[in-house]
């Protein structure tokens, strides 16, 4: 293939980018958007490949199918609930499903052309839907390359010890590598590293800080003192999913656990726990409801057992030692200390 031919194909592919290239991607559009329902046939969606289910729909005509896909029908939202897909892509996906389900897809011709085009000019194909999941994946797979020089200036200003210009390579050995600096807590979903910023829904999600602003703060976890927030009626979480007036069954009983060593004893308040939880959440699977029957250690908690089932994941983390170890020992151990 000489250069001129490649150029011609490239030009052709570019010219077709609006229609042709999109049509060729019916399969990818289907796999990224439609498969959730049409793959298994949930919510009344005709399952792909099920010729019997598709036959009457195909009979109604391609135009009607396009119409249903673009505008929605019964359980199906318009464009399958993703308004970001172009009309051409939706139609391509319809053609693909029809072709796979016993009908003759309108996009067959374009699909045949696809490999040729891809060879000549891969760019437009890249720009279509499949690139979206692929790109972040690539980034996620790579095991932490040299950290950014770009976002550094603001964060460096916040973290004083790092103020001196450090070469990017040295940052892998940075002090408190995993400790979140103040500026990196409670980030909005688009920046939190686990939401896909390319997803439209991500933009609609509430940024945590917006909700936390009016709540009492705490140094650990979300940075919110949830118990205090509840006590001061800053939040009113339901005790029953449907009934906003259902009141919790609160049990006011403190359990004091004497601990070895110099740490203050642990006071376990049933009150604050029963405000949130049901007895069966902890008893008897996590804690046997019998005095002396439970071996609890910080090691177990850090491994996610006992208190660590919640504390360290959703309830305040173990860094808040004194919230549990809150009862001074009566007898002062003499000798070793002085």
């Amino acid at each position, binding site marked *: 293939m000489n250069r001129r031919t490649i150029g011609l194909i490239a030009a052709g592919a570019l010219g077709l*980018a609006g229609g042709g290239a999109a049509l060729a991607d019916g399969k990818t559009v289907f796999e990224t958007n439609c498969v959730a329902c049409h793959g298994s046939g949930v919510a009344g969606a005709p399952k792909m490949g099920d010729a019997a289910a598709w036959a009457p729909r195909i009979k109604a005509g391609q135009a009607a199918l396009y119409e249903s896909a673009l505008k929605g029908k019964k359980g199906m939202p318009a464009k399958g609930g993703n308004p970001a897909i172009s009309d051409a892509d939706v139609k391509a996906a319809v053609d693909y499903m029809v072709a796979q389900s016993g009908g003759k897809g309108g996009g067959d011709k374009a699909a045949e052309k696809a490999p040729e085009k891809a060879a000549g000019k891969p760019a437009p194909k890249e720009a279509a839907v499949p690139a*979206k999941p692929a790109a972040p994946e690539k980034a996620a797979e790579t095991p932490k390359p040299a950290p950014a020089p770009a976002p550094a200036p603001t964060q460096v200003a916040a973290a004083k010890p790092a103020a001196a210009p450090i070469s990017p390579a040295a940052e892998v050995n940075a002090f408190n590598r*995993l400790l979140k600096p103040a500026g990196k807590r409670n980030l909005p979903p688009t920046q939190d*590293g686990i939401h896909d910023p390319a997803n439209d829904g991500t933009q609609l999600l509430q940024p945590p800080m917006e909700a936390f602003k009016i709540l009492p703060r705490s140094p650990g976890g979300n940075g919110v003192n949830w118990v205090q927030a509840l006590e001061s009626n800053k939040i009113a979480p339901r005790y029953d*999913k449907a009934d906003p007036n259902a009141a919790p069954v609160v049990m006011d009983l403190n359990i004091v656990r004497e601990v070895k060593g110099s740490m203050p004893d642990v006071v376990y308040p049933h009150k604050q726990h029963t405000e949130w939880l049901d007895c069966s*959440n902890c008893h008897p699977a996590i804690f046997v409801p019998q005095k002396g029957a439970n071996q609890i250690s910080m090691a177990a908690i850090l491994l996610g057992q006992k208190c660590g089932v919640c504390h360290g994941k959703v309830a305040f983390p173990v860094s808040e030692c004194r919230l549990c170890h809150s009862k001074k020992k009566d007898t002062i151990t003499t000798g070793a200390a002085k």
Partner: protein
Amino acid sequence: MKPCRGAVAGAIVLLAVLQFLASPPARAEYGDVLINKRSEKEGMRPVVFPHWFHRIRFRCKVCHNELGFKMRAGGNDVLMVDIIEGKFCGMCHNGQIAWSPENCDLCHSGKPGLQTKIFGSHQTGGPGRW
């Protein structure tokens, strides 16, 4: 169409580069659960469940007792069919108590490639063990 596609491609490349540079260990909110048992295999983005958002509105007991969610990340087998039939998330996400499951991308909003886990373990942002 052409310039639009170019812009999209540019934005994607830019995003990829930014992610490369930023490459966060985890800046997720404390208690966020990433659920990717099936999502990606089925061609959807993984699900992000924000504990903080739900605990402002419900006490733990509602989901971990009434709704039958086990208190272990990855310990629950939740299928989309179940949710549509009104089990698990679908007990509230039914268009009556909370918005209905048609809003796919509000839950399926996670970054592709991430594994199922809870982001906790005090402030380190490391993965919760269970």
